[in-house]
C-alpha cells in the first residue's frame, strides 16, 4: 500500500471515528471532550514537506470543523500542531542520524519515552490552543486550565490505547531498498 492511499484511508477513519464515535458518546464531564483525530497528523511520514504538512493540517481541521459546524476552530489548532511537529521531532531524535530508519513516528521509530513526549507536547499544544480559542468566547480562566489538563489526559489515554491496539507494521528502511 502506498503512503498516499494508506494516509487517505487513515484520514477518513480518523475523521469518522472522531465525528461519529467520540463526539457522539455521552461526555464524561462537560470539561472532557475526547479528541483523537489529530493523531492523524502525528502519524504522517517523516519525509513530508513542511508546507505539505501545514496544508494537510488545515484540511484535516477544516474537515472536522464542517461536521461540528465550527469552521476554523480545529483547523487553527491543527495548523499549529503541523507547524510545531518538525521542531519537536528534531529535538527528540538523535542529532547524528541524518536519516530516519522508519517512515513514520511510532514508538518503535523513536522509542517509547521520546514518542510519549512527542505525543504529549503536541497534544497539549493542540488542546491548549483549541481551548484558548473556545475560552475567548466564554468561560473562566480556571475552567480553561482544568479543561486543558482533563482533555489532554483523556486524549493521551486514547492515543496510547490506540498505539497498543493497532501496532503499525512498518518496514525497516534499508539502503538497499
Amino acid at each position, binding site marked *: 500500500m502506498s503512503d498516499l492511499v494508506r494516509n487517505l484511508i487513515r484520514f477518513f477513519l480518523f475523521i*469518522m471515528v472522531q*465525528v*461519529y464515535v467520540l463526539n457522539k458518546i455521552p461526555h464524561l464531564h462537560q470539561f472532557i471532550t475526547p479528541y483523537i483525530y489529530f493523531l492523524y497528523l502525528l502519524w504522517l511520514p517523516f519525509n513530508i514537506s*513542511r*508546507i505539505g504538512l*501545514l*496544508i494537510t*493540517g*488545515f484540511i484535516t*481541521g*477544516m474537515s472536522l*470543523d*464542517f*461536521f461540528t*459546524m*465550527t*469552521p*476554523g*476552530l480545529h*483547523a*487553527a489548532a491543527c*495548523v*499549529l500542531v*503541523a*507547524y510545531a511537529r518538525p521542531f519537536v521531532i528534531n529535538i527528540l531524535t538523535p542529532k547524528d542520524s541524518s536519516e530516519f530508519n522508519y517512515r513514520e513516528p511510532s514508538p518503535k521509530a523513536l522509542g517509547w519515552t521520546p514518542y510519549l513526549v512527542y505525543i504529549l507536547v503536541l497534544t497539549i499544544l493542540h488542546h491548549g490552543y483549541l481551548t484558548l*480559542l473556545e475560552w475567548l468566547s466564554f468561560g473562566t480562566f480556571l475552567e480553561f486550565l482544568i479543561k486543558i489538563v482533563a482533555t489532554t489526559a483523556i486524549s493521551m489515554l486514547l492515543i496510547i490505547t490506540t498505539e497498543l491496539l493497532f501496532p503499525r507494521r512498518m518496514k525497516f528502511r534499508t539502503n538497499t531498498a
Partner: protein
Amino acid sequence: MRNIFLFIRRFFTVIVFLALQALALWFLFNYNRFHRAKGLGVANEVTGWFNSRYNTAEDFFRMKEENRLLLKMNDSLMNLMSSNFIKGDTSVEVITDSIPYDTLGNFRHYAWRPAQVMYNTVSSEKNYVQINRGFNQGVKDNMGVFSSDGGLVGQVVNVSANYSQVMSLLHVQNKVNVMVKKTTSSGTISWDGKDPRYLNLGSIPKSDSLVKGDTILTGNYSLSFPPGHLVGTVAEIVPDPTTNFYVLRIKTAANFQNLQHVMLVENLQYEDQDKLLNETKKIIEDAKKIKR
C-alpha cells in the same frame, strides 16, 4: 527587492503557517457572515450526506424508543378525539300523556325514540348491541329495537343507568314471531349462528305458495314489537320434501354489520298484557292443581 525574495524564501513555512492560521481564525470569528458562502454550502452537502448515512444506521437502533414515544403520543391524542365522548341525552324527555287517548279516540300503544349504537358484534353466536339509553332515559326490558331504515334489530334484555344491551336477531336464542306479508301466516324466525346476513324461518305451511323476495314482517303476537314492521325478505326456499312447511332463508332488512342509529319502541301496554298473560297462566295452573 532581492532581499525581499530571499526573506520570503527563507521564512516561507512561517508565512504559510501564519496565513493558514489567519484564514482559520478569520473563518472562526466571521462564522456568522461566512456560513452563507458557497464553499460552506458545498461542505454542508458532503457532511449532510455522511450524517444522513449515519442517521439511517442510528435510527435503526433508536426505533424501539421512538415507537414507544409515538405510541404514547398516539395514546394521548386518541384520548382527545371527539368520538370518545358521548353527548348527554338531555334533549330528549319522554312524557306520557296522563290520558292516553287523543281527540279522535286513538289509543297510543307504541312510543318510539332514537338511540345510538355504542357497540355491536356480528361474529359471535350470541351477538348483542349496546345502545346509549338506559333506565334514566326510560328504557325498559323487552323494548323492541329497529334499525334506522326500519328493519328489526332485536329487543332490550338488560338495562343500566345510561346504557342498555339489546339481544340482536343474530343471537341463537332469539326467537321472534313474524308473519309473511302476502298471506299473514305466522312463524318463528331464528338464527343458526353462521352467516350474519341470513336468518331461518320455519313453520310457514307450503299451501302459502311463497316466492323469493316475499316480505317478512313482525308478527301480531309479540309483546315487544308493533306488528307489520319489516324484518327481511325471502332469499332462498330450501327444498325439504319431508315436511309440509317451508324452510326459508331470510335476508335481514337491517344491516347488522354497520348499525349506527337505531329506534327504540316501547309497548305502553306491556305491563298490562304481561300481567294478564301471567295471571291467565296462574289461573289455569291453579285450576289444574285443584283438579288433581
